[in-house]
């Protein structure tokens, strides 16, 4: 058990460092095992500083910076031991346009390097446009969900229709 966890820690840490600087366009981050000498009982500490900033308490990172740091860690685990499925429910909500694009660039890279399948819920038009395929969930009958396959052009129309219906 211990040797496996230590090996996993080293691998995840290597990937985490690289993914953080990719997502932030610089800066520095690393993982540390704390609170106990036994890796099976230790805590996992995350040290992160965006470009040009000091290494600080993670709580001081902004909403968007925390989301990107968390994504770097999740994807680092994937690179170490790919999972068959990944589900991300509106993780792009706190991101500005520049970071949404970096997030999508990273998703493309994950698709090239692993066989993980991704299900991504989003309201963001940039993220929608970067998907390989889109499913729409609608409630044509109030309270009853239906799944429809959507091509990208009609997704734009769907957003517009939502927008116009209520005016």
């Amino acid at each position, binding site marked *: 058990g211990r040797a496996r966890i230590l090996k*996993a820690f080293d691998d995840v840490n290597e990937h985490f460092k690289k993914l953080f600087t990719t997502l932030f366009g610089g800066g520095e981050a690393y993982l540390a095992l704390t609170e106990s000498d036994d890796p099976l009982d230790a805590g996992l500490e995350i040290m992160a500083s965006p470009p040009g900033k000091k290494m600080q308490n993670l709580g001081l990172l902004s909403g968007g910076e925390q989301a990107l740091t968390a994504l770097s860690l999740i994807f680092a685990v994937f690179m170490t031991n790919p999972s068959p499925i990944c*589900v991300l429910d509106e993780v792009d909500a706190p991101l500005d346009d520049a970071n949404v694009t970096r997030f999508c660039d990273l998703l493309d890279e994950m698709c090239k390097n692993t066989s993980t399948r991704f299900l991504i819920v989003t309201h963001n038009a940039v993220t929608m446009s970067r998907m390989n395929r889109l499913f729409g*969930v609608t*409630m044509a009958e109030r309270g009853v*969900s239906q799944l429809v396959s959507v091509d990208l052009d009609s997704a734009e129309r769907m957003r517009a229709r939502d927008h116009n219906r209520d005016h």
Partner: protein
Amino acid sequence: MDFTRLRLSGFKSFVDPTELIIEKGLTGVVGPNGCGKSNLLEALRWVMGENSAKSMRGAGMDDVIFAGTASRPARNLAEVSLNIFNNDRSAPAIFNDEQQLEISRRIERESGSAYRLNAKDVRAKDVQLLFADASTGAHSPSLVSQGRIGSLINAKPKDRRKILEEAA
């Protein structure tokens, strides 16, 4: 192991039988607020063995069964099934010869839920083990619920360590 298809019936707002084909790469799910996107993703977590009603956003597990609308009566049964292509032979021994696996979970109001693997009754534990061996499962860090992306950062260090077990 590849996930290929998810089917729901009577699960939360998906009262009518619904099928989601899961292909390689990036599948986007879009739609207005309250239409059922998160419910769809929760069906996947549920069939993989989720046992906490709270993490399904309900008071009790029966809250996953269609509760009815102004024009449709409530249901007493919900079922979700997941199809898997077992190419890397990572299933428990008794099922490992099969190429295609279908895991399903069914719940009846006030009488709990039951699992099946390729139409044979199995225990929840068997299902949970199947997914754990394939680095996934109901509590996998790669299933990020809505509003929870920051929770990995705000979690206590000992809780965060659990993510390494997924990588081991």
